[in-house]
Each structure stands twice: as structure tokens, then as C-alpha cells.
């Protein structure tokens, strides 16, 4: 399969949106484009699985390599492994759902869908890139659409949140850029002129001293995106101000760019430094998990609640990565996908409730399950996924992270794992409480009795995401096996932890 199609289709969609004359034509174009893209991603999954069962054990499949800037040794090098295929699937599902949910955007419709698809384009390009320069190009491409989406269509203190988000993410990418350039400088020892190619860099031994300097730059740069403590502060503000679809994209796609970058670039290319920094990563991850969970407890606004719980859930991703065992890393990738879908669903439902009730404060809602049974049930499904109920994707992912983390011996790691596990209880508290307050009981506000249930587009989006959650929760093996094989390659590079003396 020609992977360039994954970038070309969104580009054609963008062009189509630009050429449309009416708002309706724009959203239909966006939807058609994203559905074609979803079809393409599923085809990619099937082709990938086929190639693997036929015994093709190359690291990357469907590779394409063109020279771009010859003097800089910059290539347009793309290819996928199991992790990228999973990420591409996630992105295309969230994209379709996000476009469906924002069907009724009234102001500047064309521009809204243009920016949404542009953000998606950046993500697709990022996940298939095997050249650090190309990768960084797509990474940056997805920063500015977020700013505009929040600043123009957002609510509350949107300008502040949008600027904060843009600057923090840009700060992250500045660190990544510095790291990438220095990595290129280091590689000049082995390849004349240096290289940006991930495949070549991964086989290269970069001096320890350089690794220790560059690893934090790249890891932190990417981790800002996945809201690592203490760089998480953009997330609550950004999510709570963003329009529904932007929140879905932000939490469902954009935060995953961070986790993927940490794994693919920082850990794969600098394995020895990764081992050195593992305790710090684990510590920050656990602080994020526990702190995020407790802050969530205090939120009255259900959107803000979900935003903080994202910080906590993304902590599991970093915990899985930081433990650096095969199982925990696979778990981290699964958690990225599970959280991406779950959180997109959650934000979508919260958006639907807000659109009808015009409040997001849990205590002002109440009894909504009677008024809007479909939306209410989806809210509960999303909540149960979030707290890790077996049968849904959250359980599979978090369980894998914990099992993997427990394989690491040592007092410090054990305590961290336990703390992480225990935060699940806190999650249960806030999820169940929020569901109880806003959905169950008598209808508090008689005005709400007039509200209608979900429309076709909202139902379609919710059903799409719920089916992903259920499929992943009940039949995780196809995804887990695919991811496992590829994360094995990355983890295989990392030296084993030395036994405590």
C-alpha cells in the first residue's frame, strides 16, 4: 500500500473544503474525506496483518524513501510498524467522530472544518514519518490549528487558554527541535553530513554523554504534549475552553503525538539514556496520575473533570513507557489508543449535554438519563471505560500497564506501581459521582424536560466510538499482538536494569 495516500487524501479534502461555496458542502466534503481516510486506515490494518502473517518481519512495512533536501541528507522516508498502524486507526476514528459531532457549527463553518482536517493531516504525517525532519514538520503543522480552533470557536477564557496551549506546545516542540538538531550533529560521526533517518539512527551508537544531554530535551519536549507533570497546565485550560471537536482532537489525537514521539524518537534512538532517566520518568508519571486524580475529585464542571482525568490517564502512558518492560510498553500504547477513543467519546457526550442544557456544572444537571436516554447511556459507557471496567478497552490497557510495571523489581518501582493502581479507586469515585449527580435522580430543572435526545450525527459518532471501545475491550489480542511485536523492537534496544546492589 502506498502510505503517501494517507497524507494525500486529507490534502485533497482540504482543497475540496477551500473550494466549496456553502457551509453544508464544506462539512459534507470533510465527512466524506474523513470516511475515505478511515476506510484507508482499515485497509492498511488488514494489509499490515496479512503481510505479517505471511512472514514479512521487516521492522517497517510499506517503506518509501525519497531524497528531499540532498545537501542536508533530509529524506521523505515513510513506513509503518504495529504501533503506527494502531495510531493511524485511532486518528481516523476520532477524526470521523469529531467531524460528525461538529455538524452544527454555525460560525465560519468552512474554516472550522479546514482547521480540523489540517490538524488531522499533521497527525497522519507524524505517525508515518521515519525521518526526523519530516516528522518534525508534521508535528509543528498540528500546533497552530489548535490555537485557532480554541481562540475562535472556544468558550470561557478562550484567548488565554489558546495562547497558553500554543506557547506550551511550541515550547515542547522547540525542545524537540533542539534535540533533533543535536542528534543530527552527533550522527555526523557515523554518516558524513549527519542523518535524520530514524532507521539509521536507531542502529547507531550515540555516545553516552550526548545521549544524557539530548534525551531530556526530546523526551520532555514530547511529554509536554501528553501532559506530563509539571507541564500539564495547558491541558485543563485548553480542554475546557475548546469547542467539542477540538477537545476530542486535542485529547484523542494530539496528546498521543507526545506519547508516540517519546517512544519512537527518545526511547528508541537513545536507549541507554532512557534507562538512566527511567526513575525520573516513572516518578513524574506517578505524580501526574495521583495528582491528576485528586484534582479531578474537586471539579464541579464535568468537562474540566474530564480534562484533569486526561492528565491522570496520560500518566499511565508515561508510567508504562518509564517502566520499560515489553508488557508495560505495549500497555502504554494500548492506553494511548484506549484513552484516545474513550476521551473523545467523553468530550463528545459532554458537548452534547452542554449544547442542550447550557451548563456543564454537574450539580445543576440531574436526571438527564430520563430526558435523553441515548446520551445518558453513552456517558455511562464512557465513564465505565474510564474507570477500567472489564469488557471495555480501559481495562485491557490499564491492566497491561500494571502487569508490565509489576515485572520491574525494586522498592521504588513497586511503590510507584501501587500508587498508580490505587488511583483507580479515586477514578471510580469521581466518575460514579459525576454520573450519579448529572444523570440519575429526579430532573432538577423542569426546563430540561423539553430537551431532545441525540440527533443522527451525534448517534453515529457515539456508536462509532463505543463500538471501538467494545471491540478493543473484548478482543484485544489482535491489537495487542500487533503492538507487542513492534514495541519489542524498541524495548530490545534498552539495556536491562542493573540488579540493585
Amino acid at each position: 500500500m502506498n502510505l503517501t495516500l494517507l497524507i494525500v487524501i486529507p490534502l485533497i479534502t482540504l482543497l475540496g473544503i477551500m473550494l466549496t461555496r456553502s457551509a453544508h458542502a464544506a462539512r459534507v466534503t470533510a465527512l466524506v474525506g474523513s470516511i475515505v481516510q478511515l476506510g484507508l486506515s482499515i485497509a492498511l490494518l488488514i494489509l499490515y496483518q496479512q503481510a505479517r502473517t505471511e512472514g514479512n518481519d521487516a521492522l517497517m512495512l510499506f517503506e518509501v524513501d525519497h531524497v528531499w533536501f540532498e545537501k542536508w541528507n533530509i529524506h521523505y522516508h515513510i513506513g509503518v510498524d504495529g504501533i503506527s498502524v494502531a495510531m493511524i486507526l485511532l486518528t481516523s476514528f476520532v477524526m470521523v467522530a469529531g467531524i460528525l459531532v461538529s455538524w452544527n457549527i454555525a460560525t465560519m463553518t468552512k474554516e472550522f472544518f479546514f482547521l480540523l482536517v489540517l490538524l488531522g493531516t499533521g497527525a497522519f504525517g507524524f505517525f508515518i514519518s521515519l525521518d526526523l525532519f519530516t516528522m518534525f514538520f508534521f508535528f509543528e503543522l498540528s500546533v497552530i490549528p489548535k490555537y485557532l480552533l480554541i481562540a475562535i470557536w472556544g468558550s470561557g477564557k478562550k484567548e488565554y487558554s489558546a495562547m497558553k496551549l500554543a506557547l506550551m506546545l511550541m515550547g515542547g516542540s522547540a525542545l524537540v527541535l533542539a534535540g533533533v538538531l543535536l542528534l543530527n550533529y552527533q550522527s555526523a560521526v557515523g554518516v558524513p553530513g549527519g542523518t535524520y533517518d530514524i532507521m539509521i539512527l536507531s542502529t547507531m551508537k550515540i555516545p553516552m554523554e550526548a545521549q544524557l544531554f539530548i534525551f531530556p530535551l526530546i523526551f520532555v519536549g514530547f511529554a509536554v504534549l501528553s501532559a506530563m507533570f509539571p507541564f500539564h497546565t495547558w491541558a485543563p485550560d485548553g480542554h475546557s475552553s475548546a469547542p467539542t471537536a477540538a477537545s476530542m482532537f486535542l485529547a484523542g489525537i494530539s496528546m498521543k503525538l507526545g506519547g508516540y514521539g517519546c517512544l519512537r524518537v527518545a526511547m528508541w534512538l537513545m536507549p541507554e539514556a532512557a534507562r538512566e532517566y527511567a526513575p525520573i520518568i516513572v516518578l513524574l508519571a506517578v505524580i501526574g496520575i495521583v495528582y491528576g486524580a485528586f484534582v479531578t475529585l474537586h471539579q464541579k464542571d464535568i468537562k474540566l473533570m474530564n480534562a484533569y482525568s486526561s492528565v491522570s490517564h496520560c500518566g499511565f502512558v508515561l508510567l508504562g513507557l518509564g517502566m520499560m518492560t515489553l508488557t508495560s510498553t505495549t500497555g502504554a500504547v494500548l492506553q494511548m489508543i484506549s484513552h484516545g477513543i474513550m476521551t473523545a467519546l467523553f468530550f463528545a457526550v459532554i458537548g452534547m449535554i452542554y449544547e442542550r442544557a447550557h451548563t456543564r456544572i454537574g450539580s445543576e444537571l440531574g436526571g438527564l438519563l430520563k430526558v435523553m436516554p441515548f446520551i445518558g447511556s453513552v456517558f455511562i459507557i464512557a465513564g465505565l471505560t474510564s474507570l477500567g471496567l472489564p469488557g471495555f478497552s480501559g481495562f485491557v490497557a490499564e491492566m497491561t500497564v500494571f502487569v508490565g510495571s509489576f515485572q520491574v523489581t525494586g522498592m521504588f518501582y513497586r511503590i510507584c506501581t501501587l500508587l498508580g493502581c490505587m488511583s483507580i479507586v479515586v477514578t471510580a469515585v469521581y466518575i460514579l459521582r459525576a454520573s450519579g449527580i448529572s444523570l440519575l435522580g429526579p430532573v432538577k430543572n423542569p426546563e430540561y424536560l423539553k430537551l431532545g435526545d441525540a440527533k443522527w450525527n451525534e448517534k453515529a459518532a457515539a456508536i462509532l466510538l463505543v463500538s471501538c471501545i467494545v471491540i478493543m475491550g473484548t478482543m484485544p489480542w489482535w491489537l495487542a499482538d500487533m503492538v507487542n511485536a513492534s514495541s519489542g523492537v524498541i524495548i530490545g534496544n534498552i539495556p536491562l536494569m542493573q540488579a540493585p546492589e
Partner: protein
Amino acid sequence: MNWMEYISFMRLELVLLAVLVILLIWKVGSDEALNPIVIQLINFSLLGVAILAFCCPVEGTLFGGMFVATKMAAMQKGILAFAAFLICLSANEWLKKHSNYLEFYMMLIAVLAGMFYMISSGHFLMFYLGLELATIPLAALAAFDFEKQRSSESGVKMILSSAFSSAILLFGISFIYGSCGSLYFSDVAQRAGSEPIDLIAFGFIIAGFAFKISAVPFHLWTADVYEGAPVPVTAFLSVVSKGAAIFVFTSTLYSVFAGMQGSWTLIISVIAVVTMTLGNLMAMRQKSIKRFLAFSSITQVGYLLIAVAAASAQSYTSLIYFILIYVFSNLGAFAVVSVISDRTGKENIGDYASLYKSNPSLAIIMTLAVFSLAGIPPTAGFFGKLFLLASGASEGMVWVIIIACLNMVISLYYYLRIVKAMFVDKREDPLAQIKLSHSELITLVICVAGILATGFFSQVFDHISTVTFGVQ
């Protein structure tokens, strides 16, 4: 050597001088009605000069080594002539209302000719002659809106600070003569660095250049002059004049002072870091869009100096490449500012509120230009800035690169302010809908095409590198 060769070495300058002479004669006994056509002819003669520079490059020397024609110089002149063409095209509407617009072209062409001689000089006197030819008419241009007080003030500031910096430069050159006994670049290159006095001379020369390219701490004149001058002149100052100064500075460093590289790499890195940081911090606080662009151009110079300090074939290529992109992006921004200032007379960032509602295409072009200045993909500025940084990184300038990367974040803040004003801010009385003239439309289309295409097509970079590789 026959006369054909003489002409071909100096063809660009000769064309400019011919246009200048014809203009002077035309001015004496002209038919006013034909002036608009004459103006378009001059515009396209500038484009012709640019094309002439890029095709059929020849190399050789004239006047016993005073004037050196190289492929590199031809390319640099081509870029500058092209930028001047874009500026004239976008200034057309504004000039039509002005009583003495033929003088604008005379002075502009004189400045351009001065820059060309400066770039091609092989001798310090030739260089100084070109510099003055490029400076004095420029000050007159800055004062071109002579009924406005600010414009005259800007002209006076310009001429005073230029005279000051020229004096410093001359002082440095006199020291060079004292220690080397010659002012030919080739002679100086062999001897420079052997005597302690060379270092003093070199310090003065760097200071003089730093004035011209407005590097910190010699940047103080920039914002005032930019603010007062008419918009097209500001555009000329910030793109063509700055570009020429950077080109000459770089080639002087690389050829004349190559032997002293050890002592200037560090100095220039420090100036680079300070310049970009201070330019950034000042740009954040500006309310006038022209002052804002002035400080943003100071920041860009900071980035350029990284490549100057790196001093490799890669960095030289990146430098020329960046200036080419800078021509498109900065002139794109200035074209929009020029249109708005011409029609409404408004020059504050606050006046741009809700621009997207009334003039969507202008707002989008401004956004693209601003993103290109900030280095956001998919604009060409991303590639330009990244290559500047990469050329620094490949020389191992670790901390400079890290600070430069962080500076990109600060600069994003104020570039986003413009975007925010246009797309997000609400205003009771947004600017009226503006109808673009043909020449403005052409300028904007060229700039947008340049902003979008220059990055993706690596052929541009490769073409520049065919000239720069092997220079050193």
C-alpha cells in the same frame, strides 16, 4: 579582454544606470500623461535585472580588481532586484497620489546600484563608495513623505546614524590600511590577523556592519526610522537594505577576515543570541505594526547571524536561502500593511481587528506571511529557519541552538497576536472592504506563491548550493 566582456561583467549595474539616466531625461521634458506607463516600464526593468542576474552568470574582474563579478554576487543581486521589483509593484497605488513619484524611482535605483557595487567590490574604497551610494538616497527616501513630520524625522535619524556608522567603518578601514598597506580584499585576506591592530580594525568594522544590519546593541535607530518612513520605504529598508548589508558582511567575513575566524565566531554567536532575544522582547510590546515589523526584523537578523557564525558552505547556502524566503514573507506582510495604510491610513495592530470579516483574503495572506516569519510549517519560513539552525548545529553550537529554539516560542507569541487581532478580536468599526489594484494583486500572488513553494521545492536550495559550495 574585449568590451563585450566588460559589459557582461557589469551588465546589471549598467542597466540600472541606463534606466536612471533615461528617467532623468524624461523628468526634464516629460509628458505627465504617460507617467503611469513609464512607471510600469521601470518596474519591469527591475524584474529584467533580476532575471538577467540569474541567467548567464559570468565571472571576472574589472578595473584591476576593484570590481569583481562572481556567480554568488550575481545571485545576491538578483534576489535584491527582485525584492525591489516587488516593493515598487506594491507601492504603485501610494506613488500615484504622490506629487514627485519619479524621484522615488530615481533614488531607489541609485540605492540599488550602490548596493550592487558594494556586493561586487574587491577593494575597500569601492566598497565604501557603494555603501554611501546606497545610504544617502535611502535617507532621502525615508523622508519622502515630506509634508509629514515623522517622515522627515525618520530621514534625519537615518542619515545621522548612517553617517555615524560609516565613520566607524572608515576608521576600521584606515587601521586595516595601516597594518596591511593595501585595501584590496585579496591582499588584506593574506595579512589580516597577523598584527594586534588588525583586531581593533576588525572590531570597528564589525561595529559598522552591526549598525547597518541593526544588530543589538546597534539597533536603536531601527524602530524609529521604520516607523516614520513611508511603508514601501520601510519595506525596502527591512528587506533589501538589510539583505544587502548581510550579504556584504558575510562575504567580507568569509573572504577578507577568513584568517581570523577563531576570533569572530564567538563574537558573532553572542551578538546573534543577544539580538534575537532583545528583538523578541521588544517586539512583544509594540502597538504600531511598523515598529512591530522592525523589531521582528531585528530578531530575524539574530537568526541569520547564527549561519554567519557557523561559516560553512551549508550555512552560506542557508543564509541566502533564508533571505530569499524572507523577501517573500516580509514583503507579503508589508504589502498588506501598505495596502491598508494607503487606503485607510491606519497603522496600528489594533486597527487590524476583525480584518478577516471585512477582507478575508488580506487576512489570510497576512497570516501566511506572519507564520512564515515565525517559522511555522507548511510555509517556507519553516524550512529557512530550520536550515539556519541546522547549519549552526552542524558546527556544534549547542547553546546557541537551544536559545534560538526557545526564542522561536517567544516570537510565536507576538506573531500570534497579529493573527488573533485579525481572526478573533471584535471591533465595532472594522476596516472597510478594500479593492486591490492589479499591481497589488500581482505582488500578493507572487509573495504567497513564494511563501508556499520555496520550501517544498528543494531545487531552490540545491540551486543556491551550486553557487555557494566551493566558494570557501
